[in-house]
């Protein structure tokens, strides 16, 4: 198990603040967050390449905060793969084994079996400059796994790969994890990877771990305004609670009232989030709104087509963004400049915690 206890450090423009994180043996943790949030610094701190200003890092209960990287049994694969350009694939993979003074025949056998396992046996004498991104990625993984690390750190390892290779690599990582009971910590920007490989996701923003949980939790149930913004929640508003009946509350946002299925103390200033996907349109401009439904009227000010959906901005008292699936047919998509009524369920309005 890896435990980070109140780890803080400052490194130029990057910093970590009081990071508390526990990762079980065999777990696949994906670290996500905006650029410059400190994700790579966190990986390098776990690897021992950087030392925390305060706090401790424990591996299997032992404090390793002051142990240099060469003695931690943690391997790292960077986004650029960082293959040694002056060594062949064989020498790259054999690097760690030679340092451990593994006998020559044994080294050769281990390297060859890894090359075979990763389907790159033909690259044995190739230099990195003559390999494709996917091939370099495999060599980098084989090199990291050659030394039988207990923990594998991956810094956006699939970011530069085409979608097909990326999928293949994700499958490969899951297989590797399963076969070796490896603990994997992967930095990623991709939701696809978070859903594809992670047991758990840790969201890091401005050097703080703001939320941990399943990928679904992170993207569908963000706890704070910052997490909601990262999760792509299009509508985030601040308002004041004007009533609360024990099961639901009504808040006032600049004169417009929104009802949600959460309770909050009357008079409190709160922040709410509504995912664009949860906003739909009424067929008629004058609709009777039921108790479970919120309605906001306005005018369509912007339409942005996307791959699977259309993003529609509605201007009015409460400016909203709706994400409507294309070719659905069931929901009419209003056109630019047209008045419309946007609808969303009370249960889809999330109360966000400030200061998380």
């Amino acid at each position, binding site marked *: 198990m890896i435990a980070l206890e109140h780890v803080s450090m400052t490194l130029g423009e990057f910093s970590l603040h009081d990071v508390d994180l526990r990762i079980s043996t065999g777990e696949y943790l994906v670290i996500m967050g905006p650029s410059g949030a400190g994700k790579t610094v966190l990986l390098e701190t776990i690897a021992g390449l950087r030392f925390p200003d305060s706090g401790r890092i424990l591996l299997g209960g032992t404090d390793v905060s002051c142990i240099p*990287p*060469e003695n931690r049994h943690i391997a790292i694969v960077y986004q650029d793969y960082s293959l040694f350009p002056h060594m062949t694939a064989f020498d790259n993979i054999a690097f760690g084994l030679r340092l451990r003074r593994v006998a020559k025949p044994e080294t050769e056998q281990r390297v060859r079996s890894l090359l075979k396992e990763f389907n790159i046996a033909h690259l044995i004498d190739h230099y990195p400059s003559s390999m494709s991104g996917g091939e370099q990625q495999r060599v980098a993984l084989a090199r990291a796994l050659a030394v039988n690390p207990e923990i594998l750190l991956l810094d956006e390892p699939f970011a530069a790969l085409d979608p097909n290779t990326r999928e293949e690599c994700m499958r490969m990582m899951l297989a590797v994890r399963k076969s070796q009971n490896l603990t994997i910590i992967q930095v990623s920007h991709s939701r696809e990877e978070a859903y594809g490989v992670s047991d758990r996701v840790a969201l890091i923003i401005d050097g703080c771990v703001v939320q941990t949980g399943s990928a679904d939790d992170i993207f569908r149930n963000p706890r704070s305004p910052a997490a909601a913004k990262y999760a792509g929640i299009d509508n985030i508003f601040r308002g004041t609670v004007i009533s609360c009946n024990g099961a639901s509350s009504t808040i006032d946002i600049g004169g417009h009232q929104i009802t949600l299925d959460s309770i909050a103390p009357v008079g409190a200033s709160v922040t709410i989030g509504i995912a664009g996907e949860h906003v739909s349109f009424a067929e008629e401009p004058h609709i009777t709104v039921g108790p479970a439904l919120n309605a906001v009227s306005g005018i369509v000010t912007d339409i942005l087509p996307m791959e699977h959906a259309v993003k529609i901005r509605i201007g009015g008292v409460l400016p909203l963004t709706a994400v409507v699936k294309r070719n659905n047919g069931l929901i009419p998509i209003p056109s630019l400049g047209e008045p419309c009524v946007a609808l969303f369920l009370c249960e889809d309005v999330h109360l966000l915690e400030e200061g998380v």
Partner: protein
Amino acid sequence: MVDSIRYDPCLIAFWLMGGVVIVITILALLSIAVPELLDLSHLASVATEYGVIEAILLTMVAALVAVFFLVIFCTPLAYVLARNTIRWKGMVENIVDIPLVLPHTVAGLMVYLLFMSRGPIGAPLRSVGIVFEDAFFGIVVAMIFVSSPYYINAVREGFEKVPVHLENVARTLGATRFHAFRSIALPLSTRHILSGSFLAWGRAVGEFAAVVMIAYFPMVVSTLIYQRFTTGGLAESRSVAFIMILICIAVFVVFRWITRTTGRHDHDRA
């Protein structure tokens, strides 16, 4: 259309402006080479003079020894300057560059004051038998002093171009910092180390003012040329100069040939 791109007036103007310097260099070479090649017997007699051969050999060897010391002591310095972001880094870099901006007579005076027989370094070393005044090691220290920034800056630039991620990976695979330096940073900076060495060697071979302040004798080539110029006249000094030009060009060609495949895996070449 194609011609108007090929003969871009801006680029032609740049070529013409730069051409002035190139033409001056070629003329300077010809002004020595032509009269020497027209009088080969005189050239041969100078080239076989014991004093000339001795001065040339002394200069080459002293410069090589200077580069040897630079490689041993300044390669680690170049590495820490490239890698560490210590508070005083900027100041250390300025100190490294000081010999670049000093008049060479001033550099020579500094070296002399430090290494003369009564100097703070010269005196204790004299007691163990190492003498700098009018001696081989005097020439070497003067050469080291003036050529060190060329070496350090070239090598530091080489280390800066080696991505720190490569060393990080090596360390997680079990390499100590020194091993990562030796197996990753050093081989990937060979090109810069060699070109820095060559640059420093060239600078050392050409040094006159700083050397002459601490060691007029034994005479290095620059001193010899100056001495011949002031005592024997133009023809005498020109022959020695021409021999030196030929040797330097030969060394340059050999260096290029030796290093033709060096650094083919360097990151900035990949």
